[in-house]
């Protein structure tokens, strides 16, 4: 095989695998995006995703329903989110501290629930089946990529478009962004900042849970301890990189999807390089990306600030 054909096969592999790997990050980052625009920094995404991984798997094993698995995984993460909301919105505690605690709780719960339910047996599940559209899916090269993904990916895409529309083209979205910029102004406009922040946190939790469930069900097919390995934090970083714009979030997630597929594929081509260096790649890329954005990004002004009512 000559170099060009290797390159071609390799890049096809990366492109075809990209959307699946991008999906959990995109889901979590979309939720975090809404969270942050309402002014709540949620570092607990990692914990929420981890809780989603085990709940999604367990529900799928016991009920056999993909819909229920994703739904309940999302709702379980919402519970953690409400906890975060209670502490940061109602009690006005520091959001970094609370987010770290939420991360710990989700992290511990995921491993604990798995061990309690399944002991040491490894549970393997089948991914959500891909859709098939006659003719379109069979198109050469792009068919599988555009028309042959699983339904969750399309739903996430629709959610992304919907959120972009909501945030930048509706009254509700304007209100939400105002809460993130200046809760006092929002309150004077007749908007309830507490309500909006809670709603954002519920949405953020739900999406993180779905991202986690997708990771176990559709990517790995089984549970591993701490399997998100920082994906939740990468999602937070991606929101900074995307400058709070969902369409940039999609591009960023796809880029990360490409990074994951890239190193998983290239590992087998270059066995002489220790695999650990490839494993470091997503984290180094994250650092480079947010270095590139740096302080040029205009964060919501009231991000990570509790809203304390005062004159």
């Amino acid at each position, binding site marked *: 095989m000559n170099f060009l054909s290797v390159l071609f096969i390799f890049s096809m592999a990366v492109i075809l695998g990209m959307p699946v790997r991008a999906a959990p990050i995109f889901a979590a980052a979309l939720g975090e995006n809404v969270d942050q625009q309402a002014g709540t920094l949620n570092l607990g995404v990692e914990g929420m995703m981890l809780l989603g991984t085990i709940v999604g798997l367990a529900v799928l094993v016991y009920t056999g329903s993909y819909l229920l698995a994703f739904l309940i995984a999302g709702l379980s993460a919402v519970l953690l989110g409400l906890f975060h909301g209670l502490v940061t919105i109602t009690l006005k505690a520091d959001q970094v501290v*609370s987010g770290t605690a939420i991360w710990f*709780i989700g992290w511990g719960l995921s491993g604990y629930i798995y061990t309690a339910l399944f002991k040491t047996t490894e549970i393997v599940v089948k991914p959500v089946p891909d859709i098939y559209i006659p003719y379109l899916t069979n198109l050469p090269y792009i068919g599988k990529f555009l028309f042959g993904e699983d339904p969750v990916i399309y739903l996430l895409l629709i959610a992304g478009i919907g959120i972009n529309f909501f945030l930048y083209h509706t009254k509700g979205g304007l209100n939400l962004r105002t809460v993130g910029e200046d809760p006092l102004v929002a309150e004077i406009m007749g908007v309830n900042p507490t309500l909006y922040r809670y709603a954002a946190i519920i949405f953020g939790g739900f999406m993180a849970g779905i991202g986690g469930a997708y990771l176990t069900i559709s990517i790995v097919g089984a549970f591993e301890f701490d399997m998100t390995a920082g994906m939740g934090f990468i999602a937070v970083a991606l929101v900074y990189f995307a400058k709070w714009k969902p369409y940039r979030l999609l591009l960023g997630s796809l880029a990360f999807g490409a990074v994951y597929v890239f190193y998983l594929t290239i590992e087998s081509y270059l066995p002489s390089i220790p695999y650990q*260096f490839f494993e470091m790649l997503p984290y180094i890329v*994250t650092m480079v990306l947010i270095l590139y954005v740096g302080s040029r990004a205009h964060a919501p002004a009231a991000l990570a600030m509790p809203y304390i009512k005062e004159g």
Partner: protein
Amino acid sequence: MQIGKPLQIIFFIIIGLIISSFFLLASNVSPISGILYMLYSGFGTRIGVIATLNDSIPMIIVAIAIIIPFTAKFWNIGGQGQYLVGSIFATWIGLDLAGSMPPAIVIMAALLLSFVGGALWAFPPTAMKLYFGTNEVITTLMMNFVAVYLVDYLVSGPMEGALQRATHAPSSSTIPSPDQLFYLHGVNIGIVIAIVIAVAIFFLIRYTNFGYELRLMGNSNIAAQYAGAPLKRNMFQAMLLSGGIAGIAGMVQVFGLAHALLLSELSDITTSFGYVAIPIALIAFLNPLLTVISAIFFAGILNGAYVLEVVYGISLNLVIIIYGLIMIFAIMGVMINLNRVTKLFRRGRKNKLVEAAKN
């Protein structure tokens, strides 16, 4: 701080413990007796206390390390990475000088190099924050993951011990026993290093100009700037010191307790001192002396959980849940009272402002 506050926080921590005990039901263990048995195993027996004190040593040191930037509200979540790189450097110099130098010199060199290693790992996130305004929580965290894979590579590659290779337990060669930190009545002498660091940092934060400026920065960067505090220089010093001390924790762990560089898995709470240090430092109100107590408390929970694992087969992940719940309930304990008091004062003023805006 009101007089009733510490009591209130302890009360909330107990609530957190009680809530976490209900997870024991999933393993068919009675919650309250289970959690009491856990605390008894960690603090009630002689063996338990010795194990707890030993486990608390790295926890104390890393927690003290992260307190320094936390005081200035600079969230160094990278204690884990700094600790790991410190232990890499310490192991490397320890194995390199073994036998050719007297133990005292080996130990001094290892202390120094672990400090340098930890500080080195703290440098990029700090520079990125100060010159490019990146979020330090994310960058310090990313450095942790890189460090984990670095250790993974080293212990299964260049630094892997011959004996360890045969047993398929990835780790470096053992530090020879003359160089190891010795034990006194079963407790490693590293605890003295930990307490010396705690006292030194307590004085640094409380009684020096640098510490005063850090506390000022924690309240408000603008206020600190007006007061003439060199923000960037202080931040660099605080972070390099923090990383260095976290690195020393790695040295103490390698020379005192583990005696080799071990594989540190992401999911393994028993090697994740850098993460555990966060709740430890926070529930001690960033006070280095109280941190010693809270670290011993956290180490005791970990040791009790080992016993629960052996006796009832309960997953060690319970410890992580307990840490998280203790952390979040402690914050509730801090915030709840204060909130109720300030609300009474502020309600009247806000209504006036809303009225004024409407008119």
